């Protein structure tokens, strides 16, 4: 029997060829969350109007984010016989001129910045987009398609090797062999706790009860992190393929996957839904996937505003429609999870690596990164940084290579003061940590954590106690209230820091906060366990700044309490 995937692959090739070596101009608008915040809807509008006014038959696509968020709105244009040229900081006005001068007449307007180009560059006068300094340390595995292909078009994904891993697994591998590759890869969870994914999958594989569930965690409540939403809005099929592979590997035929995301994130939600619909339409989801006896469904599950709903057992409560409060463990999810059935929870990024691991082998993946942190990290840079954005770098690169060489360092000649990593449950690192390699365990040992990948950069004008107070307030607001130590403790910590940053702190209170942190360790989930991380690590590295806020210390001026 001919493999039904062959036909999909052929069609995808044809669709992409018409985009890559086009007969008509191809225009792509960077339209992820950052593109949107930079004005992509208006740019798209202006492009379409100008094309109509000039009576040009061009094809307009959208893409997700390239990661160079500082340069949005990024518009790339491939004219017939020309490379694909990426323009940055495009406004509606610049979009109009790109159409009138470049698309219509082949002359790129001089005042529109060119980031670079891809395709055949010889004699074009354009430099390779990926030779830019922001890409020097990057190794784009899960973000390879981001900003390049249209996330609403399944053919673009398939043309870039998409669903090949699913085909390979279904037709050439037993479930246990897929797990073997994931175990070999040493893939660790990207949602915070860095637990080996293969081990969890093995538990679920061995469970004998059905149906089995896969929960793809895209709650991403961490301030400063946007990589989960980025993947869903830029390359949703990769996430979906990862979840289906999870289903196959764990013998979950007849079961279901849920992609869990907070209501209101319209771009990632709508694109993931569109991608699911397309996958169903082409036999990649549902009954008898690609004609095999493997059946699996995937559905979006929307949650409300609640940070703790991202915690794995609270997430299951939320999918069941209840308050997102953590459950006792054991039983562990692989034994009794969603609706009491065997379940596996992984972060979006974790699932997204699996297609590459299956396609290229666990050993390939294990060859990237450090001894214990394999593969790449999706780093989200924001705060006092010249080129805020999302960068995929192999573990083992130093923070300096990320912050200075990739992100362009602190702007305006100011000195770097701190890195706040891992979200509100993460911590602070001082400027002296720049030579530390990116590594799950190394960063935890230093009192911070890599967590979900957000790094907020602070220069010398940003107050560490003030940022600590903001994070403590977040943790207090977001305690779900189930466990007394966390419910009361997070509030106490936040109140003390609030008083301190307004000049009413005391040494006794500061000492008490450290003890409260220890008592919170008796909470059910890591929200309580880690809620004192910001103050602990902040105080560890910036003690004098906190001490200066105490009445016995030098009086602090009201202005210095401000974040800036």
């Amino acid at each position, binding site marked *: 029997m001919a493999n039904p995937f062959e036909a999909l692959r052929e069609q995808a090739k044809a669709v992409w060829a018409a985009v890559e070596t086009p007969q008509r101009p191809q225009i792509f608008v960077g339209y992820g969350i950052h593109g949107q915040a930079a004005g992509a809807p208006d740019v798209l509008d202006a492009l379409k109007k100008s094309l109509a006014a000039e009576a040009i038959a061009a094809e307009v696509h959208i893409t997700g984010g390239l990661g160079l968020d500082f340069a949005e709105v990024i518009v790339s244009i491939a004219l017939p016989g020309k490379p694909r040229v990426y323009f940055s900081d495009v406004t509606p006005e610049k979009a109009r001129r790109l159409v009138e001068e470049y698309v219509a007449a082949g002359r790129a307007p001089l005042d529109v910045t060119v980031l670079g180009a891809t395709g055949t560059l010889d004699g074009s006068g354009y430099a390779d987009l990926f030779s830019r300094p922001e890409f020097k340390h990057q190794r784009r595995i899960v973000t390879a398609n981001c900003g390049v292909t249209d996330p609403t078009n399944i053919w673009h994904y398939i043309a870039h090797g998409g669903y090949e891993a699913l085909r390979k697994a279904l037709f050439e591998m037993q479930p246990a062999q897929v797990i073997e590759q994931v175990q070999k890869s040493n893939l660790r969870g990207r949602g915070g706790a860095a637990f080996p994914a293969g081990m969890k999958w093995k538990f679920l594989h061995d469970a004998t009860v059905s149906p089995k569930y896969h929960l793809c965690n895209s709650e991403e409540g961490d301030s400063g992190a946007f990589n989960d939403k980025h993947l869903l809005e830029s390359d949703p099929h990769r996430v979906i393929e990862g979840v289906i592979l999870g289903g196959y590997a764990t013998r979950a035929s007849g079961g279901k996957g849920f992609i869990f995301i907070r209501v209101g994130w319209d771009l990632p939600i709508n694109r993931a839904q569109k991608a699911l619909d397309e996958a169903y339409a082409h036999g990649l989801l549902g009954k008898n996937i690609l004609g095999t006896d493997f059946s699996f469904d995937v559905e979006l599950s929307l949650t409300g*505003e609640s940070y703790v709903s991202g915690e794995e057992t609270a997430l299951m409560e939320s999918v069941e*429609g209840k308050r997102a409060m953590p459950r006792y463990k054991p039983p562990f999810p692989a034994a009794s999870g969603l609706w009491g059935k065997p379940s596996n929870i992984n972060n979006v990024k974790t699932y997204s690596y699996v297609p590459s691991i299956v396609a290229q082998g666990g050993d390939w993946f294990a060859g990237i990164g450090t001894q214990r942190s394999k593969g790449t990290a999706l780093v989200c840079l924001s705060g006092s940084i010249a080129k805020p954005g999302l960068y995929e770098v192999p573990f083992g690169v130093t923070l300096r290579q990320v912050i200075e060489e990739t992100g362009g360092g602190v702007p305006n000649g100011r000195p770097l003061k701190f890195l706040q990593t891992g979200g509100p449950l993460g911590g602070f690192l001082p400027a002296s940590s720049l030579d530390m390699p990116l590594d799950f365990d190394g960063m935890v040992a230093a009192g911070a954590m890599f967590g979900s990948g957000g790094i907020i950069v602070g220069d010398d004008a940003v107050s560490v106690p003030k940022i600590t107070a903001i994070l403590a307030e977040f943790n207090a607001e977001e305690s779900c209230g189930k466990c007394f130590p966390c419910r009361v403790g997070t509030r106490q910590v936040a109140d003390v820091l609030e008083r301190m940053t307004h000049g009413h702190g005391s040494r006794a209170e500061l000492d008490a906060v450290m003890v409260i942190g220890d008592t919170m360790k008796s909470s059910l989930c890591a929200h309580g366990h880690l809620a004192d991380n910001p103050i602990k690590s902040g105080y560890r590295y910036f003690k004098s700044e906190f001490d200066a806020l105490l009445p016995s210390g030098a009086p602090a001026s009201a202005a210095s309490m401000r974040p800036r």
Partner: protein
Amino acid sequence: MDPKIQKVLDSQTRTVTVLSCLIAIQESFGYLVEGAIPAVAQRTGASVNDVYSVATFYTHFRFQPPGEHQIELCWGPSCQIFRSDALMKQAEEFAGIKFNGTTPDKKYTLRGLECAGACALAPVGKLDGTLVGRLTPEKLRERLIAMRQNGGGGHHG
């Protein structure tokens, strides 16, 4: 059951739970309208008490209609580094209310967001559901005036 609520509850395409029903109602009406809680209880077989417990847990649910215009400003640390407090002040002055409230004439709702997910373009706001990055007090003021002139906004946040 109010037929309008019934219609919303019946047109859900995903797994139906207490939470999914509440989300569907708020997405359609902008808030949890009168009759929503018993309707969800009836639809799902949960107790009214349980439905309330869910509706009061997730912080985006509201029992009052939102203002005609939504002004949401990100309050995450990256945005605060870029002085989202100054933006908040600007918005408070414009609407004549305090942070996290609705004007008595129901014209504006002003709210802080924990993180708008566009940290690389901080500070960020959402005006009638449209994300805007790299805000300054001046740019915000211009946008707010334009918003006022544009008339009714959506109730999506």
